[in-house]
């Protein structure tokens, strides 16, 4: 199906429903791709796609970011991170500034690069910033196992990994956001399997459609979500069968389970959510940077005026934040949603800045 056919179906189903509808994507790549392909400019007037807590950088709590920066500044520590974390502002500065001032911060594309580095530079304490959802968690688990195999004593991970499903449930339980269905993340589903979203359909009667990341695939996902509303039959559908299966990647799941156990975690905008984070199992506790460096997570305050927490829970659009586009821009970001290239604020700023009218999220709820 082409993008244009998908859009035709979306428009005709939306016209049949008539009432305003809001759907939520919970994946940073969907956020960016929807903007990049101009989907918002093509959507029928009564359909909105709002961003949920799908950008790993954006949901990382202020306390976790502060711990990372503190760690990076310690002498002897080499901090390895995915690039997106570099400019997220903590209570005092960010990793990019720390690097400018002499901290050894290295951008890596894969957790195993950090292990390799630890092997090559035995005098350095290499810490990997483990951030991301189920997409990146297996790679972090693999890194810990590789470090164990190599007998490395100078490798550890500051774990901020998150699980998406508990966050989706918490969002719905909070009652603050009303949506008509979820555009589910293809990348996460590759690992978890699409069955992971079944409880959302069962318990809340909301459709979950797993979609790919091309413009046409996202448009098709939206078309199906609206069609399912029109037909009054909430369902779980997988529109990305090329890579997503019902039960997912068992090997990756086993890796995660072997190394990590679910724990409560703090999310920006959502607060603490039971079982939504991960921690090392006791057998691998020596890789836990928080324990190793005796870091105490503090509940740091978020930047004053910053509404990232509301943005990633769909409670407001970036344009409704007073800082957006004025004090907070990609060049000089205040909140993480403006820093991350997957962040809703940055995508909005880059691709949609001329849209001044921000429609409050939830206005189109049933």
């Amino acid at each position, binding site marked *: 199906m082409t993008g244009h056919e998908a859009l035709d179906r979306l428009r005709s189903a939306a016209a049949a429903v008539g009432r305003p509808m809001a759907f939520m994507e919970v994946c940073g790549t969907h956020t960016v791709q929807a903007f990049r392909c101009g989907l918002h400019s093509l959507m029928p007037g009564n359909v909105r796609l709002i961003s949920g807590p799908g950008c790993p950088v954006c949901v990382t709590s202020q306390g976790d970011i502060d711990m990372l920066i503190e760690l990076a500044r310690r002498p002897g520590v080499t901090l390895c991170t995915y690039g997106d974390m570099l400019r997220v502002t903590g209570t005092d500065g960010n990793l*990019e500034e720390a690097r400018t001032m002499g901290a050894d911060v290295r951008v890596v594309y894969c957790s195993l690069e950090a292990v390799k580095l630890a092997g090559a530079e035995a005098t350095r304490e290499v810490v990997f910033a483990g951030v991301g959802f189920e997409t990146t968690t297996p790679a972090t688990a693999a890194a810990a196992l590789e470090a164990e195999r190599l007998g490395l004593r100078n490798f550890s991970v500051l774990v901020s990994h998150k699980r998406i499903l508990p966050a989706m449930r918490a969002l719905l339980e909070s009652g603050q956001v009303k949506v008509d269905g979820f555009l589910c993340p293809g990348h996460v589903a590759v690992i978890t399997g699409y069955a992971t979203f079944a409880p959302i359909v069962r318990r809340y009667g909301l459709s979950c459609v797993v979609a790919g990341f091309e413009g046409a695939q996202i448009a098709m996902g939206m078309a199906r979500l609206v069609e399912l509303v029109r037909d009054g039959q909430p369902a779980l559908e997988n529109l990305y069968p090329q890579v997503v299966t019902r039960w997912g990647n068992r090997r990756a799941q086993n890796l995660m389970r072997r190394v990590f156990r679910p724990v409560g975690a703090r999310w920006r905008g959502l607060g603490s959510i039971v079982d939504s984070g991960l921690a090392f199992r006791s057998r691998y506790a020596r890789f836990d940077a928080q324990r190793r460096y005796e870091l105490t997570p503090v509940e740091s305050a978020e930047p004053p005026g910053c509404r990232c927490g509301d943005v990633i829970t769909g409670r407001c659009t970036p344009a409704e934040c007073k800082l957006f586009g004025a004090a907070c821009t990609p060049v000089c970001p205040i909140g993480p949603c403006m820093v991350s290239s997957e962040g809703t604020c940055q995508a909005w700023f880059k691709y949609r800045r001329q849209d001044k009218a921000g429609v409050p999220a939830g206005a189109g709820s049933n």
Partner: protein
Amino acid sequence: MDKSKHIVLAHGGGGQLTDELIANTLLPRLGNETLGQLLDSSIVPGTAERMAMTIDSYVVRPLFFPGGDIGRLAVCGTVNDLAVCGAEPLGLALSLIMAEGLEREVLESAMNSVREAADEAGVKVITGDTKVVGRGQADGMYITTAGVGSVREGLRLHPDQIRAGDKLIISGTIADHGLAVMLAREMPEVQSVLRSDVAPLNRMIGRLLDKVSGVVFMRDPTRGGLACVAADIAGRTGLHVVLDEGRIPIRAETRHAADMLGLEVLEVASEGKVVVVVRPEAAEAALGALREDEHGRDARIIGQVEDTRDGLCELQTVLGGRRIMLKPYGEQLSRIC
């Protein structure tokens, strides 16, 4: 407003932060009528022959990458900065900064590439300098290349010539250089057919200007890529630029590499391509002239300048939507997933 107290990598990215550095730190101290034009090359004031001059430093890592190396880049980048201003290169000045311990073979190999690329462009290195700094004070080798050239009689390529209706042409596939280099640097274990497009464009551009009148402005989409050039044209003219995504030539392997590294392909550098802004009636002729050259085979008309006075660049997407295209920030950060 950029409030950073220190220079960060992104200040060298050629995007918004580089603009800030130039506007807030350099121009207030060094600015004059010529420098303030912020062109790829400047006309040397007081020269009767309309002498153009440019300079660029090359700090690419790795020094050798698929499709080229620092030597070839150091010639092509400077030659192209002259060529896009309508100047035929007359001579290059090459300054080498080497770190103690650099292997002689590496230097020889890079200098062979300088020679080959200069021959290809039909220009000579006419002066130079060498410096060696202590181990650890520099990483391998850096090259700075200045170039002088003579500008064609009666030709003035400048953003202020651009008006609504003008067409934008790209001379071929974009982002090949940046992705070949980034892949070689970040994922050396990945086997790819991707190669840098680094090439001197003065002959192609010379032929274009011989055959076609109506070319009003050119720029090579290096750091910051096509997005940067298009957004810059919109910003500097105050007009509206629309690019048609479906018409922008991008190799499949380049697109895949960009996706894998989490980069916006439109923001990635080319080193052997040029964006030509041309009057609409001359667009087809310009396309024909570019396609005669091996570096312009895949030339396409990719957009136009419109009369809306908002200074913004918009992308008409394959899906049929529209979205803004901004100048990139600076350093390209990989995405997490």
